[in-house]
């Protein structure tokens, strides 16, 4: 069956919008993806037909909302091929998932001198929480370097591992470079050294099939909004034995078993980590987003995006003085680049007036910018609804930038 991109585009109401009189060309999917009708409707449906607080009431609506939310959890379990739905924790997003592991696992487990290994291409959200852990425990952060193409230098990574390595926290796909990181190999090597591994899957889940059991990941996090789901909801997957041994993150309702003023006992997984009323409609709509992408098929999405990436790369290379940053052989559909010495914000402003949405700046990955000695880049990141025509629009608009700047 061929990939019917125009049919898919019809599922996304926002793609019919105009920006300054031009059709919206949305190439900022790495920052946040647009939402299909199925996701928008799931939110509306929840509030119109099955909303109440979850896991509390004996009444009909509470039961309905609880069932819908737990169905979404099962949908995500199946999506990640986790062994058990109790290993799927609803959090606000990947950032909260990482902070949860930092606080409830790393701060308990790590001692002064223990080591955490990161890579040079991590997002700030996979750096800063570990700095908190370092400051609170005396642990040491080591950083695995990348090549000029933006590939992780596996030899250098292996050299960093030691008997003191307790955790490797690594992105699955670099948000700034598009590099696909060989996480299966990293996990295998880390486990050989007795270290646990957390994978930041934000950029990976919309583009490739994930199997946390095949990967043998200890923790895997992602945000709903990059997977065509709502913002404010995300997933922390953790192996049950690790999650069971961890202390709770936030205290409050839903996460308790019994409470008195002397002491409290905590609920079982996954509720131990879900204090307070969760983003109920968000969780349900995340389930709808997962159903949407699995309905199209991740292998079909991956094939479409990789064809777009090849075309866009070729087209951009035809513009003199486009400098691509991130040219790893294994790449997701993310193109980070600079145009002459024109500042990315000037490029972004001109593209915007032509209806083209790209990200400009450091992409919350300042160490990557430092590594390539640039202050910022322009980043076009593609999603399942983007087209070749949109690549052409981007290229035409970049030529227009050159014209304005007389380059």
């Amino acid at each position, binding site marked *: 069956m061929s990939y019917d991109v125009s049919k898919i585009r019809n599922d996304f109401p926002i793609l019919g919008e105009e920006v300054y009189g031009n059709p919206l060309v949305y190439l900022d999917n790495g920052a946040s993806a647009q939402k299909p009708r199925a996701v928008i409707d799931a939110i509306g449906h929840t509030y119109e037909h099955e909303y109440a607080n979850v896991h509390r009431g004996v009444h009909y609506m509470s039961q309905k909302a609880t069932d819908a939310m737990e169905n979404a959890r099962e949908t995500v379990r199946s999506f990640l091929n986790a062994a058990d739905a109790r290993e799927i924790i609803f959090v606000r997003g990947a950032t909260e998932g990482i902070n949860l592991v930092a606080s409830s696992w790393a701060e308990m487990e790590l001692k002064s001198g223990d080591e955490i290994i990161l890579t040079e291409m991590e997002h700030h959200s996979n750096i800063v929480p570990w700095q908190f852990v370092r400051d609170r425990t005396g642990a040491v952060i080591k950083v695995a370097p990348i090549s000029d193409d933006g590939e992780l230098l596996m030899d250098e990574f292996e050299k960093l591992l030691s008997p003191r390595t307790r955790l490797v926290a690594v992105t699955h796909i670099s948000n700034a470079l598009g590099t696909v990181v060989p996480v299966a190999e990293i996990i295998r090597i880390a486990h050989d050294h007795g270290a646990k591994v957390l994978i930041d899957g934000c950029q990976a889940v919309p583009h490739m099939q994930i199997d946390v059991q095949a990967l043998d990941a200890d923790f895997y996090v992602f945000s709903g909004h990059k997977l065509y789901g709502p913002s404010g909801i995300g997933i922390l997957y953790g192996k049950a034995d690790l999650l069971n041994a961890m202390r709770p993150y936030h205290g409050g309702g839903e996460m308790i078993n019994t409470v008195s003023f002397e002491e409290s006992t905590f609920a079982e997984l996954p509720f131990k980590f879900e204090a307070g009323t969760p983003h109920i409609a968000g969780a349900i709509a995340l389930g709808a987003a997962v159903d949407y992408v699995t309905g199209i098929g991740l292998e079909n999405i991956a094939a479409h995006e990789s064809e777009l990436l090849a075309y866009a790369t070729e087209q951009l290379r035809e513009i003199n003085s486009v400098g691509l940053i991130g040219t790893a052989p294994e790449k997701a559909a993310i193109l980070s680049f600079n145009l002459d010495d*024109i500042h990315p914000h000037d490029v972004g402003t001109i593209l915007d007036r032509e209806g083209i949405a790209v990200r400009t700046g450091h992409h919350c990955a300042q160490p990557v910018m430092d590594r390539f000695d640039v*202050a910022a880049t322009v980043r076009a990141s593609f999603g399942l609804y983007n087209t070749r025509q949109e690549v052409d629009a981007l290229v035409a608009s970049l030529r227009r930038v050159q014209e*304005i*700047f007389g380059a």
Partner: protein
Amino acid sequence: MNDLRDLYQDVILDHSKNPRNEGRPENPGHEAKGNNPLCGDKITVYVTVDDGVLKDIRFEARGCAISVASASMMSELAKGKSAEDVRAMFDDFHEAVTSKEPVAPEEVEKLDKLAALIGVREFPMRVKCATLPWHTLAAAIDDSTQEVTTE
């Protein structure tokens, strides 16, 4: 498209490509650093003040065309003026670029060559680029040790 040409006028492009008074002076007097964390624009402004008058202004900037052009024009305009006059000039400029209403011709005239930057009014996300050098200059005059940020 016209508003793009309004934003990127030749005079702006000229100042951004050939910034005036760029570089660290041998004897920097007062200095301050400015930073726009959103875009990573960074600027350092050096100013020598003598008897309330800005004798020399220099800057080092890593930023977009708008911020570099604004810094360059600022360095030309503020030189030889009193600190008070420079503040008044910044106030006028700030008011013009953040104004919700079109700016009156007599107000535009007051802005002198800064009038070229008035196009950023149509680009709210870029106003901070134009004003960062001025905030930083104000801090340098005060010799603030606190880094200026637009956030």
